[in-house]
Protein backbone atom coordinates (compact mmCIF):
# COMPACT_ATOMS: atom_id res chain seq x y z
CA UNK A 1 0.00 0.00 0.00
CA UNK A 2 2.87 2.34 0.79
CA UNK A 3 4.17 1.83 -2.73
CA UNK A 4 0.76 2.52 -4.26
CA UNK A 5 0.70 5.72 -2.27
CA UNK A 6 4.19 6.63 -3.52
CA UNK A 7 3.09 5.92 -7.07
CA UNK A 8 -0.01 8.13 -6.80
CA UNK A 9 1.85 11.00 -5.16
CA UNK A 10 4.55 10.78 -7.81
CA UNK A 11 2.04 10.76 -10.66
CA UNK A 12 0.33 13.84 -9.28
CA UNK A 13 3.68 15.56 -8.85
CA UNK A 14 4.05 14.99 -12.59
CA UNK A 15 1.23 17.49 -13.16
CA UNK A 16 3.36 20.47 -12.14
CA UNK A 17 6.34 19.17 -14.14
CA UNK A 18 4.13 18.85 -17.19
CA UNK A 19 2.98 22.45 -16.67
CA UNK A 20 6.65 23.53 -16.43
CA UNK A 21 7.31 21.74 -19.67
CA UNK A 22 4.42 22.99 -21.83
CA UNK A 23 5.90 26.42 -22.56
CA UNK A 24 9.30 24.96 -23.36
CA UNK A 25 7.75 22.31 -25.58
CA UNK A 26 5.65 24.87 -27.47
CA UNK A 27 8.51 27.22 -28.23
CA UNK A 28 10.76 24.39 -29.32
CA UNK A 29 8.02 22.66 -31.31
CA UNK A 30 6.90 25.74 -33.22
CA UNK A 31 10.06 27.80 -33.71
CA UNK A 32 12.90 25.45 -32.69
CA UNK A 33 13.68 27.87 -29.88
CA UNK A 34 15.52 26.32 -26.95
CA UNK A 35 14.54 28.79 -24.29
CA UNK A 36 17.18 28.72 -21.56
CA UNK A 37 15.29 31.49 -19.73
CA UNK A 38 12.18 29.30 -19.42
CA UNK A 39 12.76 28.41 -15.77
CA UNK A 40 13.40 32.02 -14.88
CA UNK A 41 10.22 33.06 -16.65
CA UNK A 42 8.37 30.56 -14.44
CA UNK A 43 9.92 32.18 -11.36
CA UNK A 44 9.28 35.66 -12.76
CA UNK A 45 5.58 34.74 -13.06
CA UNK A 46 5.61 33.81 -9.38
CA UNK A 47 7.08 37.21 -8.49
CA UNK A 48 4.54 39.01 -10.64
CA UNK A 49 1.82 37.11 -8.76
CA UNK A 50 3.48 38.06 -5.47
CA UNK A 51 3.42 41.75 -6.36
CA UNK A 52 -0.16 41.62 -7.64
CA UNK A 53 -1.28 39.65 -4.60
CA UNK A 54 0.33 42.11 -2.19
CA UNK A 55 -0.96 45.06 -4.14
CA UNK A 56 -4.56 43.94 -4.50
CA UNK A 57 -5.01 41.60 -1.56
CA UNK A 58 -6.26 38.90 -3.92
CA UNK A 59 -5.25 35.28 -3.41
CA UNK A 60 -2.55 34.02 -5.82
CA UNK A 61 -4.84 31.93 -8.03
CA UNK A 62 -7.20 34.87 -8.57
CA UNK A 63 -4.14 36.95 -9.42
CA UNK A 64 -3.78 34.81 -12.56
CA UNK A 65 -6.38 37.10 -14.14
CA UNK A 66 -3.65 39.73 -14.18
CA UNK A 67 -0.50 37.58 -14.28
CA UNK A 68 -1.55 35.65 -17.39
CA UNK A 69 -2.10 38.69 -19.65
CA UNK A 70 1.06 40.32 -18.32
CA UNK A 71 3.14 37.25 -19.16
CA UNK A 72 1.44 36.86 -22.56
CA UNK A 73 2.41 40.44 -23.40
CA UNK A 74 5.94 39.87 -22.12
CA UNK A 75 6.31 36.72 -24.23
CA UNK A 76 4.96 38.48 -27.32
CA UNK A 77 7.31 41.42 -26.83
CA UNK A 78 10.31 39.21 -26.05
CA UNK A 79 9.87 37.25 -29.26
CA UNK A 80 9.01 40.23 -31.43
CA UNK A 81 11.62 42.58 -30.08
CA UNK A 82 14.51 40.23 -29.37
CA UNK A 83 14.27 36.55 -30.22
CA UNK A 84 13.04 37.03 -33.80
CA UNK A 85 16.39 38.69 -34.52
CA UNK A 86 18.18 35.44 -33.62
CA UNK A 87 16.18 33.10 -35.86
CA UNK A 88 18.24 32.96 -39.02
CA UNK A 89 21.55 31.83 -37.57
CA UNK A 90 20.80 28.28 -36.45
CA UNK A 91 20.30 26.92 -32.94
CA UNK A 92 23.18 28.68 -31.19
CA UNK A 93 22.16 32.39 -31.27
CA UNK A 94 18.76 31.88 -29.56
CA UNK A 95 20.48 29.63 -27.01
CA UNK A 96 22.99 32.35 -26.14
CA UNK A 97 20.43 35.15 -26.13
CA UNK A 98 17.98 33.31 -23.88
CA UNK A 99 20.90 32.43 -21.61
CA UNK A 100 21.50 36.18 -21.35
CA UNK A 101 17.81 36.79 -20.68
CA UNK A 102 18.00 34.18 -17.93
CA UNK A 103 20.87 36.05 -16.22
CA UNK A 104 19.06 39.38 -16.59
CA UNK A 105 15.86 38.01 -15.01
CA UNK A 106 17.71 36.36 -12.11
CA UNK A 107 19.72 39.45 -11.31
CA UNK A 108 16.79 41.77 -11.85
CA UNK A 109 14.75 39.76 -9.34
CA UNK A 110 17.68 39.73 -6.93
CA UNK A 111 17.94 43.49 -7.24
CA UNK A 112 14.22 44.05 -6.81
CA UNK A 113 13.28 41.49 -4.18
CA UNK A 114 16.54 40.43 -2.53
CA UNK A 115 17.60 36.83 -2.06
CA UNK A 116 14.81 36.12 0.44
CA UNK A 117 12.80 32.96 0.08
CA UNK A 118 9.20 33.75 -0.83
CA UNK A 119 5.96 31.82 -0.97
CA UNK A 120 2.48 32.48 -2.24
CA UNK A 121 -0.27 31.75 0.31
CA UNK A 122 -3.45 30.21 -1.03
CA UNK A 123 -4.93 29.20 2.34
CA UNK A 124 -6.73 26.04 3.40
CA UNK A 125 -6.54 24.24 0.05
CA UNK A 126 -2.79 23.86 0.48
CA UNK A 127 -3.13 21.40 3.34
CA UNK A 128 -6.53 19.82 2.63
CA UNK A 129 -6.42 16.14 1.76
CA UNK A 130 -8.70 13.27 0.83
CA UNK A 131 -8.54 10.00 2.75
CA UNK A 132 -8.86 6.71 0.91
CA UNK A 133 -9.09 3.13 2.24
CA UNK A 134 -5.76 1.55 3.06
CA UNK A 135 -4.37 4.67 4.67
CA UNK A 136 -3.84 6.48 1.38
CA UNK A 137 -4.06 10.21 1.78
CA UNK A 138 -4.00 12.44 -1.28
CA UNK A 139 -3.61 16.19 -1.09
CA UNK A 140 -6.36 18.23 -2.71
CA UNK A 141 -3.87 20.72 -4.10
CA UNK A 142 -1.80 18.19 -6.11
CA UNK A 143 -5.08 16.89 -7.58
CA UNK A 144 -6.06 20.42 -8.58
CA UNK A 145 -2.65 21.01 -10.17
CA UNK A 146 -2.85 17.72 -12.05
CA UNK A 147 -6.34 18.68 -13.24
CA UNK A 148 -5.04 22.03 -14.45
CA UNK A 149 -2.28 20.22 -16.37
CA UNK A 150 -4.89 17.98 -18.05
CA UNK A 151 -7.00 21.02 -18.92
CA UNK A 152 -3.99 22.88 -20.26
CA UNK A 153 -2.96 19.99 -22.50
CA UNK A 154 -6.54 19.42 -23.63
CA UNK A 155 -6.98 23.06 -24.59
CA UNK A 156 -3.70 23.03 -26.48
CA UNK A 157 -4.86 19.94 -28.31
CA UNK A 158 -8.00 21.81 -29.36
CA UNK A 159 -6.00 24.88 -30.32
CA UNK A 160 -3.62 22.87 -32.49
CA UNK A 161 -6.12 20.61 -34.24
CA UNK A 162 -9.33 22.65 -34.35
CA UNK A 163 -8.32 26.23 -35.12
CA UNK A 164 -6.73 28.12 -37.99
CA UNK A 165 -4.06 29.43 -35.65
CA UNK A 166 -3.13 25.89 -34.63
CA UNK A 167 -2.99 24.85 -38.28
CA UNK A 168 -0.58 27.70 -38.95
CA UNK A 169 1.54 26.66 -35.95
CA UNK A 170 1.81 23.12 -37.30
CA UNK A 171 2.59 24.34 -40.81
CA UNK A 172 5.32 26.68 -39.59
CA UNK A 173 6.78 23.89 -37.49
CA UNK A 174 6.89 21.66 -40.60
CA UNK A 175 8.35 24.18 -43.02
CA UNK A 176 8.65 27.83 -42.07
CA UNK A 177 9.81 29.04 -45.50
CA UNK A 178 6.86 27.50 -47.32
CA UNK A 179 4.42 28.78 -44.70
CA UNK A 180 5.74 32.28 -45.40
CA UNK A 181 5.10 31.69 -49.13
CA UNK A 182 1.50 30.80 -48.23
CA UNK A 183 0.98 34.16 -46.55
CA UNK A 184 1.87 33.34 -42.94
CA UNK A 185 3.76 36.13 -41.19
CA UNK A 186 6.14 33.84 -39.31
CA UNK A 187 7.58 36.51 -37.06
CA UNK A 188 4.18 37.60 -35.86
CA UNK A 189 3.09 33.99 -35.45
CA UNK A 190 6.22 33.23 -33.40
CA UNK A 191 5.42 36.18 -31.14
CA UNK A 192 1.89 34.84 -30.58
CA UNK A 193 3.38 31.40 -29.94
CA UNK A 194 5.73 32.64 -27.23
CA UNK A 195 2.84 34.64 -25.81
CA UNK A 196 0.74 31.47 -25.58
CA UNK A 197 3.71 29.57 -24.12
CA UNK A 198 3.93 32.29 -21.46
CA UNK A 199 0.25 31.81 -20.55
CA UNK A 200 1.09 28.26 -19.48
CA UNK A 201 4.34 29.39 -17.92
CA UNK A 202 2.42 31.91 -15.82
CA UNK A 203 -0.03 29.26 -14.62
CA UNK A 204 2.85 26.88 -13.87
CA UNK A 205 4.75 29.60 -12.00
CA UNK A 206 1.85 30.53 -9.73
CA UNK A 207 0.81 26.95 -8.99
CA UNK A 208 4.43 26.00 -8.24
CA UNK A 209 4.97 28.99 -5.95
CA UNK A 210 1.93 28.08 -3.83
CA UNK A 211 3.45 24.70 -3.18
CA UNK A 212 7.17 25.42 -2.99
CA UNK A 213 9.38 28.19 -1.69
CA UNK A 214 11.06 30.22 -4.38
CA UNK A 215 13.83 32.78 -4.68
CA UNK A 216 15.46 34.57 -7.62
CA UNK A 217 17.77 31.61 -8.29
CA UNK A 218 14.99 28.99 -8.42
CA UNK A 219 14.65 29.09 -12.22
CA UNK A 220 17.40 26.80 -13.55
CA UNK A 221 16.11 23.77 -11.59
CA UNK A 222 12.63 24.29 -13.10
CA UNK A 223 14.23 24.53 -16.52
CA UNK A 224 15.99 21.20 -16.04
CA UNK A 225 12.79 19.52 -14.83
CA UNK A 226 10.91 20.95 -17.81
CA UNK A 227 13.61 19.76 -20.20
CA UNK A 228 13.56 16.29 -18.72
CA UNK A 229 9.78 16.01 -18.96
CA UNK A 230 9.81 17.18 -22.59
CA UNK A 231 12.62 14.86 -23.62
CA UNK A 232 11.24 11.80 -21.82
CA UNK A 233 7.87 12.37 -23.47
CA UNK A 234 9.38 12.95 -26.89
CA UNK A 235 9.83 16.34 -28.56
CA UNK A 236 6.61 17.78 -29.90
CA UNK A 237 4.30 15.33 -28.17
CA UNK A 238 1.97 17.12 -25.76
CA UNK A 239 0.56 14.09 -23.97
CA UNK A 240 4.05 12.58 -23.96
CA UNK A 241 5.07 15.63 -21.94
CA UNK A 242 2.50 14.77 -19.28
CA UNK A 243 3.76 11.20 -19.18
CA UNK A 244 7.33 12.51 -19.00
CA UNK A 245 6.37 14.68 -16.03
CA UNK A 246 4.67 11.74 -14.33
CA UNK A 247 7.69 9.49 -14.85
CA UNK A 248 9.91 12.14 -13.30
CA UNK A 249 7.48 12.57 -10.40
CA UNK A 250 7.19 8.83 -9.76
CA UNK A 251 10.97 8.38 -9.92
CA UNK A 252 11.42 11.21 -7.42
CA UNK A 253 8.77 9.81 -5.07
CA UNK A 254 10.27 6.34 -5.20
CA UNK A 255 13.72 7.83 -4.61
CA UNK A 256 12.42 9.84 -1.66
CA UNK A 257 10.75 6.75 -0.22
CA UNK A 258 14.07 4.93 -0.30
CA UNK A 259 16.00 7.81 1.19
CA UNK A 260 15.15 11.54 1.28
CA UNK A 261 18.55 12.39 -0.22
CA UNK A 262 17.70 10.33 -3.29
CA UNK A 263 14.62 12.29 -4.35
CA UNK A 264 16.12 14.66 -6.93
CA UNK A 265 18.81 12.27 -8.07
CA UNK A 266 16.27 9.50 -8.76
CA UNK A 267 14.45 11.77 -11.22
CA UNK A 268 17.65 12.55 -13.10
CA UNK A 269 18.61 8.87 -13.17
CA UNK A 270 15.21 7.93 -14.63
CA UNK A 271 15.75 10.63 -17.25
CA UNK A 272 19.22 9.34 -18.14
CA UNK A 273 17.99 5.76 -18.41
CA UNK A 274 15.23 6.79 -20.82
CA UNK A 275 17.69 8.90 -22.78
CA UNK A 276 19.89 5.83 -23.21
CA UNK A 277 17.08 3.40 -24.02
CA UNK A 278 14.99 5.73 -26.21
CA UNK A 279 17.06 8.76 -27.21
CA UNK A 280 14.16 10.40 -29.03
CA UNK A 281 11.75 9.97 -26.10
CA UNK A 282 8.64 7.87 -25.73
CA UNK A 283 6.41 9.57 -28.33
CA UNK A 284 8.58 11.63 -30.66
CA UNK A 285 6.58 13.86 -33.00
CA UNK A 286 8.70 16.78 -34.06
CA UNK A 287 10.78 16.22 -37.17
CA UNK A 288 14.47 17.09 -37.61
Amino acid at each position, binding site marked *: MAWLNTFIQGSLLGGIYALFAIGLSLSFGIMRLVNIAHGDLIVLSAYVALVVSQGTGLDPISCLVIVVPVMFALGYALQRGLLNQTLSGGLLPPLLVTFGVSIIIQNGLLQGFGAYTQRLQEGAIETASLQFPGGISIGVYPIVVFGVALLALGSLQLLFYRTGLGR*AFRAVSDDADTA*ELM*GVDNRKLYAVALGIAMIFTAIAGVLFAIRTNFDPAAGPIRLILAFEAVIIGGLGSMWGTLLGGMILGIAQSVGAALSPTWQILAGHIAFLIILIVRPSGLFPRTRD
Partner: protein
Amino acid sequence: MTLLETQKLSAFYGDFQALFDIDVTVEQGETVAIIGANGAGKTTFLRAVAGALETAPEMVMFEGRPIGKHTAHDVVRLGIAMAPEGRRLFPSLSVEENLLLGGYSKRPGPWNLNRVYDLFPRLRELRHLPATDLSGGQQQMTTVGRALMSNPRLLLCDELSLGLAPVVIRDIYDCLGKITAEGTTVVLVEQDINRALDASARFYCFQEGRLALTAPTTGFDRTAISAAYFGM
Protein backbone atom coordinates in the same frame (compact mmCIF):
# COMPACT_ATOMS: atom_id res chain seq x y z
CA MET B 1 -2.26 45.80 -68.89
CA THR B 2 1.10 44.82 -67.51
CA LEU B 3 0.71 42.74 -64.36
CA LEU B 4 4.31 41.87 -63.57
CA GLU B 5 7.44 43.57 -64.72
CA THR B 6 10.98 42.91 -63.61
CA GLN B 7 13.54 45.59 -64.39
CA LYS B 8 17.18 44.58 -64.42
CA LEU B 9 16.38 42.01 -61.73
CA SER B 10 19.50 40.74 -60.00
CA ALA B 11 19.43 38.29 -57.12
CA PHE B 12 22.05 36.87 -54.82
CA TYR B 13 22.50 33.92 -52.52
CA GLY B 14 25.03 35.45 -50.14
CA ASP B 15 27.92 36.51 -52.36
CA PHE B 16 26.83 34.32 -55.24
CA GLN B 17 24.92 36.18 -57.94
CA ALA B 18 22.19 33.93 -59.35
CA LEU B 19 20.38 36.40 -61.64
CA PHE B 20 21.80 39.15 -63.85
CA ASP B 21 19.65 42.03 -65.18
CA ILE B 22 16.56 40.01 -65.98
CA ASP B 23 13.80 41.96 -67.77
CA VAL B 24 10.55 40.01 -67.89
CA THR B 25 7.09 41.40 -68.59
CA VAL B 26 3.87 39.49 -67.98
CA GLU B 27 0.56 40.88 -69.22
CA GLN B 28 -2.71 40.43 -67.37
CA GLY B 29 -4.33 37.10 -68.31
CA GLU B 30 -1.52 35.53 -70.28
CA THR B 31 0.47 32.39 -69.60
CA VAL B 32 4.21 32.79 -69.83
CA ALA B 33 6.79 30.02 -69.68
CA ILE B 34 10.28 30.29 -68.30
CA ILE B 35 12.56 27.57 -69.56
CA GLY B 36 16.19 26.80 -69.10
CA ALA B 37 18.62 24.15 -67.97
CA ASN B 38 19.31 23.22 -64.38
CA GLY B 39 20.85 26.13 -62.53
CA ALA B 40 19.73 28.70 -65.11
CA GLY B 41 18.04 30.76 -62.38
CA LYS B 42 14.39 29.89 -63.07
CA THR B 43 13.50 29.02 -59.50
CA THR B 44 15.53 31.96 -58.21
CA PHE B 45 13.50 34.22 -60.47
CA LEU B 46 10.20 32.89 -59.07
CA ARG B 47 11.49 33.20 -55.50
CA ALA B 48 12.52 36.79 -56.12
CA VAL B 49 9.08 37.63 -57.53
CA ALA B 50 7.37 35.85 -54.61
CA GLY B 51 9.35 37.84 -52.06
CA ALA B 52 11.34 34.89 -50.73
CA LEU B 53 14.51 36.63 -51.93
CA GLU B 54 15.04 40.28 -51.22
CA THR B 55 15.88 42.56 -54.14
CA ALA B 56 15.89 46.30 -54.74
CA PRO B 57 12.27 47.60 -54.65
CA GLU B 58 11.94 48.65 -58.31
CA MET B 59 13.42 45.43 -59.64
CA VAL B 60 10.02 43.74 -59.24
CA MET B 61 6.93 45.75 -60.19
CA PHE B 62 3.48 44.23 -59.63
CA GLU B 63 0.44 46.16 -60.86
CA GLY B 64 2.76 49.13 -61.19
CA ARG B 65 3.92 48.94 -57.58
CA PRO B 66 7.51 48.22 -56.53
CA ILE B 67 7.47 45.03 -54.44
CA GLY B 68 11.11 43.94 -54.55
CA LYS B 69 11.54 44.56 -50.82
CA HIS B 70 8.23 43.04 -49.75
CA THR B 71 8.29 39.93 -47.59
CA ALA B 72 6.79 36.74 -48.99
CA HIS B 73 3.65 36.93 -46.85
CA ASP B 74 2.97 40.51 -47.98
CA VAL B 75 3.37 39.48 -51.60
CA VAL B 76 0.70 36.79 -51.11
CA ARG B 77 -1.68 39.46 -49.84
CA LEU B 78 -1.08 41.48 -53.02
CA GLY B 79 -2.10 38.47 -55.11
CA ILE B 80 0.96 36.41 -56.06
CA ALA B 81 0.88 32.74 -55.13
CA MET B 82 3.48 30.05 -55.59
CA ALA B 83 3.25 26.32 -56.24
CA PRO B 84 6.84 25.62 -55.19
CA GLU B 85 9.26 23.15 -56.70
CA GLY B 86 9.16 19.78 -54.95
CA ARG B 87 5.59 20.57 -53.83
CA ARG B 88 6.58 21.34 -50.23
CA LEU B 89 3.27 20.22 -48.73
CA PHE B 90 3.05 20.33 -44.94
CA PRO B 91 3.46 16.74 -43.75
CA SER B 92 1.64 17.22 -40.42
CA LEU B 93 -1.42 18.64 -42.16
CA SER B 94 -4.16 16.76 -43.96
CA VAL B 95 -4.91 17.52 -47.59
CA GLU B 96 -7.77 19.80 -46.59
CA GLU B 97 -5.66 21.55 -43.95
CA ASN B 98 -2.96 22.16 -46.54
CA LEU B 99 -5.56 23.78 -48.79
CA LEU B 100 -6.97 25.84 -45.92
CA LEU B 101 -3.50 27.06 -45.07
CA GLY B 102 -3.19 28.29 -48.64
CA GLY B 103 -6.16 30.53 -47.83
CA TYR B 104 -4.43 31.97 -44.75
CA SER B 105 -4.26 35.46 -46.26
CA LYS B 106 -8.08 35.48 -46.68
CA ARG B 107 -7.88 37.23 -50.04
CA PRO B 108 -11.36 37.41 -51.54
CA GLY B 109 -11.95 35.87 -54.96
CA PRO B 110 -13.46 32.99 -56.92
CA TRP B 111 -11.49 30.17 -55.30
CA ASN B 112 -12.52 28.34 -52.15
CA LEU B 113 -12.37 24.74 -50.89
CA ASN B 114 -15.36 23.66 -52.95
CA ARG B 115 -14.08 25.18 -56.16
CA VAL B 116 -10.69 23.53 -55.67
CA TYR B 117 -12.40 20.17 -55.06
CA ASP B 118 -14.46 20.70 -58.22
CA LEU B 119 -11.25 21.29 -60.13
CA PHE B 120 -9.54 18.24 -58.58
CA PRO B 121 -12.37 15.85 -57.62
CA ARG B 122 -9.96 13.17 -56.33
CA LEU B 123 -8.82 15.53 -53.59
CA ARG B 124 -12.32 15.73 -52.16
CA GLU B 125 -12.24 11.97 -51.50
CA LEU B 126 -8.74 12.14 -50.04
CA ARG B 127 -9.18 15.34 -48.07
CA HIS B 128 -8.72 13.83 -44.58
CA LEU B 129 -5.53 11.92 -45.44
CA PRO B 130 -2.11 13.30 -44.52
CA ALA B 131 -0.84 15.11 -47.61
CA THR B 132 2.23 12.88 -47.69
CA ASP B 133 0.07 9.75 -48.19
CA LEU B 134 -0.98 10.92 -51.66
CA SER B 135 0.54 9.92 -54.98
CA GLY B 136 2.89 12.37 -56.66
CA GLY B 137 0.21 13.64 -59.03
CA GLN B 138 -2.32 14.10 -56.24
CA GLN B 139 0.29 15.94 -54.20
CA GLN B 140 0.95 18.23 -57.14
CA MET B 141 -2.80 18.92 -57.44
CA THR B 142 -2.86 19.77 -53.73
CA THR B 143 0.07 22.13 -54.26
CA VAL B 144 -1.72 23.95 -57.07
CA GLY B 145 -4.97 23.97 -55.08
CA ARG B 146 -3.18 25.36 -52.05
CA ALA B 147 -1.78 28.21 -54.14
CA LEU B 148 -5.22 28.92 -55.66
CA MET B 149 -6.77 29.22 -52.20
CA SER B 150 -5.13 32.63 -51.83
CA ASN B 151 -7.05 33.80 -54.93
CA PRO B 152 -3.94 34.95 -56.75
CA ARG B 153 -3.90 37.32 -59.70
CA LEU B 154 -0.56 35.79 -60.60
CA LEU B 155 0.16 32.09 -60.11
CA LEU B 156 3.79 30.96 -60.14
CA CYS B 157 4.20 27.26 -60.95
CA ASP B 158 7.63 25.76 -60.41
CA GLU B 159 8.28 22.45 -62.20
CA LEU B 160 4.73 21.08 -62.12
CA SER B 161 5.78 18.07 -64.18
CA LEU B 162 8.82 17.06 -62.13
CA GLY B 163 8.83 13.34 -61.35
CA LEU B 164 5.31 12.70 -62.66
CA ALA B 165 4.06 10.22 -65.27
CA PRO B 166 3.17 11.76 -68.65
CA VAL B 167 -0.54 10.96 -68.27
CA VAL B 168 -0.60 12.70 -64.89
CA ILE B 169 1.24 15.69 -66.28
CA ARG B 170 -1.38 15.99 -69.00
CA ASP B 171 -4.17 15.98 -66.40
CA ILE B 172 -2.52 18.74 -64.43
CA TYR B 173 -1.91 20.88 -67.50
CA ASP B 174 -5.55 20.39 -68.52
CA CYS B 175 -6.55 21.83 -65.16
CA LEU B 176 -4.16 24.72 -65.69
CA GLY B 177 -6.31 25.65 -68.69
CA LYS B 178 -9.35 25.89 -66.41
CA ILE B 179 -7.40 28.09 -64.02
CA THR B 180 -6.31 30.54 -66.70
CA ALA B 181 -9.90 30.59 -67.96
CA GLU B 182 -10.75 32.31 -64.64
CA GLY B 183 -8.49 35.15 -65.70
CA THR B 184 -5.56 34.09 -63.54
CA THR B 185 -2.21 34.96 -65.01
CA VAL B 186 0.33 32.14 -64.89
CA VAL B 187 4.09 31.99 -64.98
CA LEU B 188 5.33 28.45 -65.61
CA VAL B 189 8.81 27.27 -64.90
CA GLU B 190 9.62 23.99 -66.61
CA GLN B 191 12.52 21.87 -67.73
CA ASP B 192 10.13 19.99 -70.02
CA ILE B 193 10.33 22.47 -72.89
CA ASN B 194 7.60 21.04 -75.09
CA ARG B 195 5.12 20.91 -72.24
CA ALA B 196 5.89 24.49 -71.29
CA LEU B 197 5.69 25.85 -74.83
CA ASP B 198 2.39 24.07 -75.51
CA ALA B 199 0.78 25.61 -72.45
CA SER B 200 2.00 29.17 -72.93
CA ALA B 201 1.78 32.04 -75.37
CA ARG B 202 5.28 33.42 -74.82
CA PHE B 203 8.46 32.13 -73.29
CA TYR B 204 11.67 33.37 -71.78
CA CYS B 205 14.74 31.19 -71.90
CA PHE B 206 17.29 31.65 -69.10
CA GLN B 207 20.88 30.60 -69.27
CA GLU B 208 23.29 30.83 -66.36
CA GLY B 209 21.29 33.58 -64.69
CA ARG B 210 20.89 35.68 -67.82
CA LEU B 211 18.06 36.10 -70.27
CA ALA B 212 19.09 34.25 -73.45
CA LEU B 213 15.98 34.43 -75.60
CA THR B 214 12.36 35.56 -75.54
CA ALA B 215 9.70 35.04 -78.16
CA PRO B 216 6.10 33.96 -78.79
CA THR B 217 5.76 30.18 -78.66
CA THR B 218 3.89 29.78 -81.95
CA GLY B 219 5.77 29.41 -85.18
CA PHE B 220 9.12 29.50 -83.50
CA ASP B 221 12.18 27.62 -84.62
CA ARG B 222 13.00 25.10 -81.94
CA THR B 223 16.66 24.83 -82.94
CA ALA B 224 17.06 28.45 -81.85
CA ILE B 225 15.55 27.50 -78.50
CA SER B 226 18.01 24.65 -78.16
CA ALA B 227 20.83 27.06 -78.83
CA ALA B 228 19.59 29.47 -76.16
CA TYR B 229 18.87 26.60 -73.77
CA PHE B 230 22.26 24.95 -73.94
CA GLY B 231 24.27 28.04 -74.86
CA MET B 232 25.60 26.54 -78.08
